[in-house]
């Protein structure tokens, strides 16, 4: 597998091996431990680590490549997204993001559960064959964590939208609803 590989890439060999579950868990724990004082407000905290992955970047002059792991976290309480880079157990970089990172599967499931709390909507979105498709509602400011869900019914001529909803994960509530044949309603 080394055929045609440059000397620069050969040097990366160990850096690029797959991230183990243990490494991912260790990095997430280190990131959360580091952030915990900032995540807490009035004795409460509500946050989620969105996942960990290898982070490869070019070293500064005369520096060496390291096996770094990047952890993204959502701090719902303080409405911010944070990126943490971990080297082993050591946090080496923390940065607040000015954009909204991708929703995790866990968040999408949570949003779907919030939708299904409403009995009228539950009848629509839990109907056999209906599935959800996520989008990002417009104009979300930094730190906002709003998920849009379009619920669809497949048909031979293309899917039909039966409901379009917005969920604010920070507030844990439905903020807008439009069902097939109805006008859009804004909650709150």
């Amino acid at each position: 597998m080394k055929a045609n590989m440059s000397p620069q890439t050969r040097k990366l060999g160990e850096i690029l091996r797959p991230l183990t579950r243990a490494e991912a868990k260790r990095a997430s724990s280190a990131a959360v431990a580091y952030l915990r004082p900032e995540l807490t407000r009035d004795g409460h905290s509500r946050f989620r680590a969105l996942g960990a992955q290898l982070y490869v970047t070019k070293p500064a002059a005369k520096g060496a490549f390291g096996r770094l792991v990047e952890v993204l976290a959502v701090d719902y309480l303080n409405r911010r997204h944070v990126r943490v880079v971990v080297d082993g157990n050591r946090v080496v970089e923390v940065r607040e993001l000015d954009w909204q990172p991708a929703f995790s599967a866990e968040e999408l499931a949570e949003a779907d559960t919030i939708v299904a709390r409403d009995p009228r909507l539950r009848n629509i979105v839990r109907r056999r064959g209906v599935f959800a498709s996520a989008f990002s509602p417009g104009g979300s400011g930094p730190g906002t964590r709003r998920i849009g869900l379009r619920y669809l019914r497949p048909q031979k001529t293309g899917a039909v939208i039966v409901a379009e909803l917005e969920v604010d994960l920070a507030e844990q509530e439905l903020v807008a609803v439009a069902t097939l044949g109805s006008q859009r309603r804004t909650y709150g």
Partner: protein
Amino acid sequence: MANFGDFHQVTGAGWSVYWRISQLHGSGLEVWFADFQGRRVMWRGSQPFAIVPYHRPIAGDPKPPDYTYKDGVGPQWGGAPFTALKKSAPNQWASSTWHAAVDTEAVEVDVEPAGNFGPAHLRITAKFQCGWYQYVHSWEFDGDGNIHPRLGMGGELNPNDTSKAHTHHMYFRVDLDIDGFSRDLFEEFEHASYNDPGGDVWTVVSAQGKRLAAPERARKWRVRDAASTSALGAFRGYEIEVPQLAGRDSYSTGDIWVTVYRGDSVQQGGDVGVAAPTDDVLETVYASGPLDTISGNDVVFWVAVHAHHEPRQQAEESSFLPYHYAEFSITPRGFEVFRRRSNEIG
């Protein structure tokens, strides 16, 4: 091994390339550490976001006043992330049963030998659900050193109004490291006339910024090493040729932006299109500052491929969109000396 985010190496057609899909719902397919015949060509390539303005007015999404989505990384304005699909997923608005459980379910790697009419190639392809649309991300690496970043568009038409035309402005981020990084120059070519000398001119670009395509002047660009040369003395480089299927507009304002490397976690497109559904951030934030025209820089460039789509909702596209493709080319110039007996190396 993680479900997503690991690096996977593939080889073929004289190339060694790694690919990665960072997340299930995210920014799509990335290629890393693309080496040709033992020399580094590309550190990283990605197509992380799209800006999609629709004809207006339209009932339902996209919403006024801009009627424009930002899809992919950091989606906004009703846009959606690129969700990795199993490679066998049907061309439709696919449900979560077709989402890839692991990255290797999403990516197809083809290696084809050279034929009578073209070189061998290594092609890395994956498709992503994005609302009702599907985007195919494809990177082809040819045995003659060419690279073809390609975008396929499929899925279904906007269910709110299937007749509404729109333009896909797909953005590619490419970090070429010709024979290593930190010493590359960025140049712009123009064919001014047939009178030599001076008929064709390469000009070294001295500042980061936005550049515009001009087919009437055969305009193209080049990233070339400031020191490394081929066996015959040409500076090693790669040209960028961007044939456009549509023009620029107030949402997608350029064709190529030259910037410098500032890391692999910043300036990846997440913050573009957040304040407004335009690419202004590329020009005002990313492509800002001087370039070193003597010693070179670690050059990163962005390309916007523009493709206007007039729906065929009463015929061919009434139930699904047959994939249609747009691409640009990254072509070696001075990189290597080819042998007479073959149209390719290796």
